[in-house]
């Protein structure tokens, strides 16, 4: 079964159409990248899929469950990591993981889940410090750990590496690769086209709320006889 099917999604803020008829699907176990410039509609699309925003029109299903009809069922199998997110500043990293885990399980499986999160975050002793003492890289690792420890069937990650230094960004890309090896499907957005090329099995290029091209990075490069995805994008947009 497909991890995600998006059919003709429209989303308007008032009279402003942010996403204007987008269709794509994410296969089970695949890493799928939504790429495009700022304001293209990536965050809006991810928020709609994550049950956060209402749908203006269109159909969305996550593992066969409708986002609009059964949002609570969808929430059980997804994990959404917003762009530039933080955590509750008076909690420690571990307390934050415990807080989130409490919504999924209890008892000894909850402890397992938290331990898994602590392992992914890999923050050493600092996992027991208050999160408002964390650097940007530490915070992102904690949040990635939070999103993954629940073993979602579909992880939705908005600009996960933006604003991070090379070391932290590479480490997080590694975590995402491993995640898909364990069978979790991933939908991520990025405006860093090189990153997407390295990470994703398939990508969709989005511009001004519309998908302008999609396919595996290698196919796209061949089709547009370009050296990298950035060139593909420029060729597509300039027409």
């Amino acid at each position: 079964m497909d991890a995600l099917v998006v059919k003709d999604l429209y989303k308007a803020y008032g009279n402003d159409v942010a996403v204007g008829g987008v269709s794509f699907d994410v296969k089970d176990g695949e890493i799928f990248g939504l790429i495009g410039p700022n304001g293209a509609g990536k965050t809006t699309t991810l928020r709609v899929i994550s049950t956060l925003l209402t749908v203006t029109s269109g159909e969305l299903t996550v593992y066969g469950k409708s986002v609009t009809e059964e949002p609570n069922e969808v929430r059980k199998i997804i994990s959404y990591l917003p762009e530039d997110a933080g955590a509750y500043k008076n909690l420690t990293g571990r307390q934050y993981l415990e807080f989130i885990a409490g919504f999924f399980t209890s008892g000894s499986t909850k402890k397992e889940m938290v331990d898994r999160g602590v392992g992914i975050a890999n923050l050493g002793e600092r996992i027991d410090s208050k999160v408002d003492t964390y650097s940007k890289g530490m915070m992102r690792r904690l949040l990635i750990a939070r999103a993954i420890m629940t073993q979602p069937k579909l992880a939705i990650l908005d600009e996960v590496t933006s604003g991070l230094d090379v070391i932290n960004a590479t480490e997080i890309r590694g975590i995402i690769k491993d995640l898909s090896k364990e069978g979790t499907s991933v939908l991520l957005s990025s405006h860093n086209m090189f990153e997407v090329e390295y990470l994703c099995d398939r990508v969709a290029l989005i511009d001004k709320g519309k998908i302008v091209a999609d396919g595996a990075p290698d196919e796209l490069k061949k089709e547009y006889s370009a050296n990298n995805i950035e060139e593909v994008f420029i060729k597509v947009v300039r027409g």
Partner: protein
Amino acid sequence: MISHLWHLIKKEVRELLTPATVIPIVIMAIIFASIGNLTGGAVEDTLSASPVIGIINLDGDNETYSAIIYDTAIAMNASIVFESDDINDLQEGLDVVRERGAMALIVIGPDYNESISSGEKGNLTVYWNMKGTGIFSSMSSAPVDIMLSEVSRSTTYALIEESSDLDPENITSPIVYSSTTLLGDKELVGLGPETVAGFLQSQSFTMPMLIMIIIVMLGGIIISSMGQEKENKTLETLLTLPVNRTVIVSGKLLGSAIVGLVFAGIYMVGMNIYMDNLMIGDVDLSEFGISMGTAETALVGLMVVLAIVCALGICMILGAFAMNYKAAQSLTIPITFLALIPFFVTMFTDYQSLSPILQALMFAIPFTHPMMATNNIMVGNMELVYYGIAYLAIFALATVFITVRLYKSDILLTGVGTTVKGSRTRRRMRK
């Protein structure tokens, strides 16, 4: 479901009950307690202190009326730091009074006794030694004031005794009346309206002040915490977890209500110390049936809880529109107003004496009800109390309902006002 709720409540309490939020309210309580101590202490001190004075007597000390001055001073245990019968010693007298920190120098005029015996006014000149410029500075000379009015009274009595056989006490205050004050359906035998009003005011001061301060403080904390939740996207994250939105809203509401009650408790301790210290020889009206039993206290407690929930509900609705921490700050203004209006109305006038339109307006503000509850209960005006509770309960439920609706809509994430900015960007992009 219940475990999720409990989980959210714990998180909320942990986030909100921090040194940064608790310290201001503790400081406030300490300030109240110490104001009570200071004023209470200052009043008691001056009332029990004895006069410290200097006297220059220019009119022979064995005469009837100037002797009264000396007798009164002795009766009041006054210490006389300077004494003379020569006007040339005035400067020296003033210096001694300053140096010794005495309260005043009293100069008895040369014709003092003669003037009084011949039916004219006796002449005293008083040099007051004012220490400091604070509010209580003038109070330090109160014992001399008391002494002088005692001198005046004794002199009157002496004059009356010379010319009449009647009791001077009865001549100076020839009538006596006993008061009974009618209050609601109660008859307070032996009490005048000032006494009753004084008692009710001291009682009704505590509750409005408590409600006002708690709501203003809590409102600020809740709204900025919501602004922070949006800035950190923790709210966004929470809304993608498998938790019912009603549970999220209730968790936030109950968690903050617990914090509000903790604040109220801290504040009450400070306020009680304040009130205890201010009550000097005040009457206790409980023997007249004007008091609150356990059931009545529970009613007021229920109203406080409901008012806190209403305040939180309003804050959550306002907070839903705040996009970040900064925008949240200005949203505390409406809630502050809603708390201040009934506070001033209950302090300076009362509900019963308002016009029907104003009464309706006041009734509509939920915080009015707990503010006037104590007095209504003591006066036996229970109808208003029960209507108030019903209104508070409905209001609280309505705010929860509206908040849940907001949490299900886009507004929580998109806010209001951003559309304008968004449309501008889009138009630019289409070009």
